[in-house]
């Protein structure tokens, strides 16, 4: 277990390094020259050279990359073009809101997906099963911004049950969490159904039924215990989907997280922020994948790690 953990940590570190290499290369794709942007239009060649040296752009590329990685490791993400502030600080101050939103989305997708999947599995082959499975595709196929704007329209504007976006109370969290979690809810209902269908076919379930255990107890007690395990192990993998989703969801709901920061940076082409958020998001995705791998053997001892 420990050697496996060590091995996985090393691989993860290398993947993160690869991510920084890609974001580093991205800076060279920008059509605008940062030196010209800082120096202004009427600058002399001398002043431009000075700025180039200040930014360290006159050094060979590998040295620049090494410098970039060392700075990242120290938590230095550079300075924002537009906001003239430290990118690391901007990201750290907004991270808690994003993590809270992601937590809410996990609760939402499980609350949507698990009951739907269990219900469909217990009615396998019937019309209600087919209806739930088709509905699950609606959740997967709905663009998040349309879901978000629709929820806002119905529950905040029309019924006025919940606030029209913003941040602060539990009430503010409900709609964004559902929006971010609805696609996951669709997937989880499908996975929960197929996992449950597999479990319900096993001998010990037949034994339980033969003993005369009522069907709802067979499904919810005997079946659920085993069927839910592979589903729980997958939660870590959701981080990737969430990290993409927060850009849209946070900007629709005015949620002050890193997604909204990213949105603003995109409109202003503020590259250091875009790069910084991408690296931080990738780090969380790698962490989530690692978590998913480590949790699997804990909940299912039959799986051994190598």
């Amino acid at each position, binding site marked *: 277990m420990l050697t496996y953990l060590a091995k996985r940590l090393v691989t993860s570190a290398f993947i993160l390094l690869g*991510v920084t290499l890609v974001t580093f290369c991205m800076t060279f794709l920008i059509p605008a020259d940062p030196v010209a942007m800082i120096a202004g239009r009427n600058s002399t060649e001398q002043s431009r050279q000075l700025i180039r040296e200040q930014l360290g752009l006159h050094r060979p590329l590998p040295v620049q990359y090494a410098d970039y990685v060392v700075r990242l490791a120290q938590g230095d993400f550079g300075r924002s073009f537009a906001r003239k502030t430290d990118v690391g600080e901007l990201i750290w101050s907004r991270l808690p809101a994003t993590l809270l939103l992601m937590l809410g989305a996990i609760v939402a997708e499980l609350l949507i997906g698990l009951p739907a999947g269990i219900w469909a599995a217990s009615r396998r082959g019937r019309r209600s099963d087919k209806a739930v499975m088709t509905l699950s595709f609606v959740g997967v196929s709905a*663009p998040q911004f*349309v879901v978000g*704007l629709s929820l806002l329209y119905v529950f905040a*504007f029309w019924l006025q049950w919940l606030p029209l976006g913003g941040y602060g109370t539990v009430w503010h969290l409900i709609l964004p969490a559902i929006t971010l979690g609805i696609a996951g809810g669709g997937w989880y209902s499908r996975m929960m159904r197929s996992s449950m269908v597999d479990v319900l076919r096993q001998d010990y379930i037949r034994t339980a039924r033969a003993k005369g255990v009522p069907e709802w107890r067979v499904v919810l007690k005997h079946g659920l215990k085993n069927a839910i395990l592979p589903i729980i192990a997958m939660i870590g993998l959701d981080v990737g989907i969430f990290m993409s989703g927060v850009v*849209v969801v946070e900007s629709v709901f005015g949620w002050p997280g890193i997604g909204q920061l990213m949105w603003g940076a995109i409109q202003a082409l503020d590259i250091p922020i875009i790069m910084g958020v*991408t690296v931080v*998001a990738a780090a969380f*995705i790698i962490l989530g994948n690692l978590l998913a791998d480590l949790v699997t053997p804990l909940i299912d001892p039959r799986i051994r790690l190598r």
Partner: protein
Amino acid sequence: MGELWRAFRKDKAAVAGLAVIALFVLAALLAPVLAPYDPNFQFMDGLTDDGQPLPPSERFWFGTDRLGRDQLARVLYGGGVSLLIGVLANGFAVLIGTLLGVTAGYVKGRIGAAIMRFTDLMMAFPALLLGIALAAILKPSLFIVALVIALVSWVQVARVVYTETLALAERDFIEAARALGASPTRILFRHLIPHLMPTVLVYGTLGIATTVLFEATLSFVGVGVQPPMPSWGKMIFDSQSYYLTAPWLVFIPGAAILITALAFNLAGDGLRDALDPTQRGRR
């Protein structure tokens, strides 16, 4: 082929999906004929007196947008842009994913390992963030948008194709081909890739749901196709500040995106079941 269609036909949801796809493609192709007006024409009387978009009426079925343009015409033309990008992007993604996956699975060794490490790396990237960053930097045309989406969505195809190739490469008929002296390239293109066609076909359909949503999201973030070209996502991006006063501007293109993605998901899912006989009894 006839057998495939018979199996596919049993899944009513999948057939409905296919019908919707056919309908939307037809509507997009015939947009110049079907659209009542020019999608970029700004009607002098296309706005209310205080400059608000007009609600749906007999003259403008889907209402007008914030510039007084006919929303129906824009939805029809926008469908072409959205579908074209979705299909192109997914085509590229499946092509890249299949070639890389089959190479990694068959060649193995250092090249195979390098390819798989690269897919691991891409898995760690938030696809949308990377796509947004690329699109923001590149100032995209229709073709570039499709390419950007493909560049971040081939990974899943590559992984599935890789696993399947590993299993296929162990099979006797590949061994036999090798024993007969077939070159690796010949084995790759004549023996391996044809057996991967079902997978390619399924991802070629299912994946379009994802790429259509991806295009819509890129447009909604403001880095998709550039004006005046309408795409469904772009139309929502343009009118999102009107969603309380003129909700049809958001919900009609939104419904179009949802129905398109849903149709491709249903059709792809049905295709997967029809192609995989072992799954048939289990539904």
